[in-house]
């Protein structure tokens, strides 16, 4: 197996596939590698941590056929630093020889026979508007949990909803929900739970234009350009999120999204931890005041112009979760609806009712 490729295109493809490579390989060292397979006119690059697999093809000029597993990080680092327009990769016995300009390296390969068999991608996919999906993922994925102790919450629920698609994620502190009317990715009342990590990669690769989604029994594949991102479906029952969304809010606040975000970012500076700082929001008909108090450091407050309809109250939120919400809802004006200092609040953009961000307060002494 020997091929010549455009350096930049190959570096891009390797960089993409490498993102699925396991950071800790545990019992299967071969997973630290990237499988490179030469076919007629192209190579296929595959990285996998068994949960998520990324497969990219890129055109090359090749001689012969064959497969090898190269150490992924090293391969990607070398390609990223090479000079010149082209690079040659050749398998010599157990070694891979990489040459570009005056540089040459010989790398030991990993055993290709040990590389796991990959899930088959079903033949029939569904076309989905890439830009709309990208925006939805940007809004929803950050709310998913990164804590493996509750695997179900590390996924994003994709559910058929009133002829469209609904995406929901929660880490139990906040919940993000987006509706994509008219996107019929799932049939009937189908619902699947897809790992947020895989979806974050999908979002990273998404550009304008359609993508294809292939749903299988145990996994789902997103075909974005020349890349297939396959991620295992998470088994288990997603929490009954609908009962969490309050139907009535006695207190309704409208505030400029930019002003609120900037004020939170300033006030949270005075805290032990800028991420977890509780930001108090005192709301009354004259406007709102944000404040943060940190023992041994000091306190900060800022008043922000706003319209408020309801009874005077103070609610505190985790600064980072608040900022995530401000970022996710988009638009120029944010609506923040609250019940009381201990029950969930809802953030939305009044001009984009398809998205909702539910946020639990922080209990303050």
């Amino acid at each position, binding site marked *: 197996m020997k091929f010549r490729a455009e350096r930049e295109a190959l570096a891009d493809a390797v960089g993409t596939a490498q993102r699925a490579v396991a950071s800790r390989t545990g019992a299967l060292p071969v997973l630290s590698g990237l499988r490179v397979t030469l076919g007629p006119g192209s190579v296929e690059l595959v990285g996998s941590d068994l949960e998520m697999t990324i497969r990219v093809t890129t055109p090359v000029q090749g001689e012969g056929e064959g497969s090898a597993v190269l150490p992924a990080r090293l391969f990607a680092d070398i390609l990223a630093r090479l000079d010149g327009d082209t690079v040659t990769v050749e398998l010599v016995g157990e070694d891979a020889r990489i040459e570009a300009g005056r540089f040459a390296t010989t790398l030991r390969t990993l055993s290709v026979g040990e590389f796991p068999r990959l899930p088959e991608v079903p033949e029939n996919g569904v076309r989905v508007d890439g830009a709309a999906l990208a925006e939805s993922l940007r809004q929803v994925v950050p709310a998913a949990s990164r804590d493996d102790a509750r695997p179900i919450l590390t996924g994003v629920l994709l559910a058929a909803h009133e002829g469209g698609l609904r995406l929901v994620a929660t880490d*139990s502190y*906040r919940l993000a929900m987006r509706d994509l009317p008219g996107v019929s990715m799932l049939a009937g009342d189908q619902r699947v739970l897809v790992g947020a990590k895989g979806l974050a990669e999908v979002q990273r690769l998404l550009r304008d234009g359609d993508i294809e989604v292939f749903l299988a029994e145990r996994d789902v594949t997103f075909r974005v350009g020349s890349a297939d991102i396959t991620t295992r479906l998470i088994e288990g029952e997603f*929490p009954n999120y609908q009962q969490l969304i309050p139907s009535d809010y006695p207190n309704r606040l409208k505030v400029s999204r930019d002003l609120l975000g900037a004020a939170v970012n300033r006030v949270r500076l005075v805290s032990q931890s800028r991420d977890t700082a*509780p930001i108090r929001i005192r709301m009354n008909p004259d406007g709102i005041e944000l404040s943060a108090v940190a023992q041994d450091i000091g306190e900060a407050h800022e008043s922000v112009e706003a319209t408020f309809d309801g009874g005077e109250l103070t609610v505190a939120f985790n600064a980072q979760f608040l900022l995530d919400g401000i970022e996710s809802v988009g638009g120029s004006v944010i609506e923040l609806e609250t019940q009381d200092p*201990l029950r969930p609040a809802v953030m939305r953009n009044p001009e984009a009712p398809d998205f909702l961000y539910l946020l*639990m307060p922080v209990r303050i*002494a």
Partner: protein
Amino acid sequence: MTTAAGAPPSILHCDLDAFFASVEQLHDPALAGRPVVVGGLGARGVVAAASYEARRFGIHSAMPMARARRACPDGVFLAPRFDAYRDASRAVMTILGSFTSLVEPIALDEAFLDVGGSRRRWGTGPEIAVVIRDRVHAETGLTVSVGVATTKFLAKLASDRSKPDGLLVIEPGTETAFLHPLPVEALWGVGPATHRRLVALGVRTVGDLATLGEPTLIGALGAARGRHLHALAHNRDDRAVVPERAVKSVGHEETFAVDHRDPAVLAREVAHLADRVAARLRAAGQRGRTVQLKVRFADFRTVTRSRTLARPTDLGAEIGATARDLLAGVDPGPGVRLLGVSVHQLGADDGPLTLDLDGAGAGPGGRRRAALEESIDAVRDRFGADSVRTARRAAAPPGPPAGTGA
């Protein structure tokens, strides 16, 4: 902290006299002047506290209860009531806290104070000690012994030597004169094993110890202990009084009347302990992240297992499930004498609230579960700890545990 010679000593060690027993005597005046012993009343319980009247019969804490009963058949033997002791302790600690913020509680009945910064307002260490003793007695009825010195360990030795109802001041410059005649086992860190080794070296008093070089002590006792005792013998103790803002863990233990081997019985006890720990966490407004299980076997071998949860909890169901998981990894074959469940890494229960994802009330962590456990707390508060039990425990054959300890 060492004070320059000449300045009055400012480290105080305050130690309430026969604390549990004194609280009982205050609550029931009929007990005044009688030998009162508090501890586990079962066959294998031990003495937690003995009034000075009881001590005349040779009764002391940690003595098996059965022996205490034989030593003093006419004594009053009571099960501990920790809530009452906690209340009394809080009252005393509040008094101590009015003299300085540097109060380091060691136990319910014991605390160090550094009053070096209170001189202008309250006077010198010895003067403050007098006021503390008066106020504690006037406001709570309890007597407290106080040691005043330039270091923590000397202050503690002084309060020990002044008991009961005493005050002993070790003036700067007289430390070694006080220290050296004391038996070496009076020092912190000299247990029976170390004592035997020291006696073998011909050391009986702290003064004997002070004549030995540090290398000799390190050779005989190991580096850490050798250095530690060498420093103490020369009155070097630079530990500061560290005010403690919060307790570090909450736990509960049970010593059984008979050794248990049945996993089902042990699991039931663990669940019960977890409920009690959870109730105490909730009462203190705390949650913890690490659950620890302690198992002591019939041969007194003790093992602990712990697991850290994804998020802090104060729910008995969650603590119990974790502790039972840990129990499953311990072989009860040799017979289990004692079980303990404790929760560590505590924090106040302010902090992020969570969505009620288990809204149906199915799993732990749901708000319904929390509401349920809080209602149970309220019932137990009014009608006693055993008024509400899980079906699992209610089904257990009767047989009270021998002793309880906090």
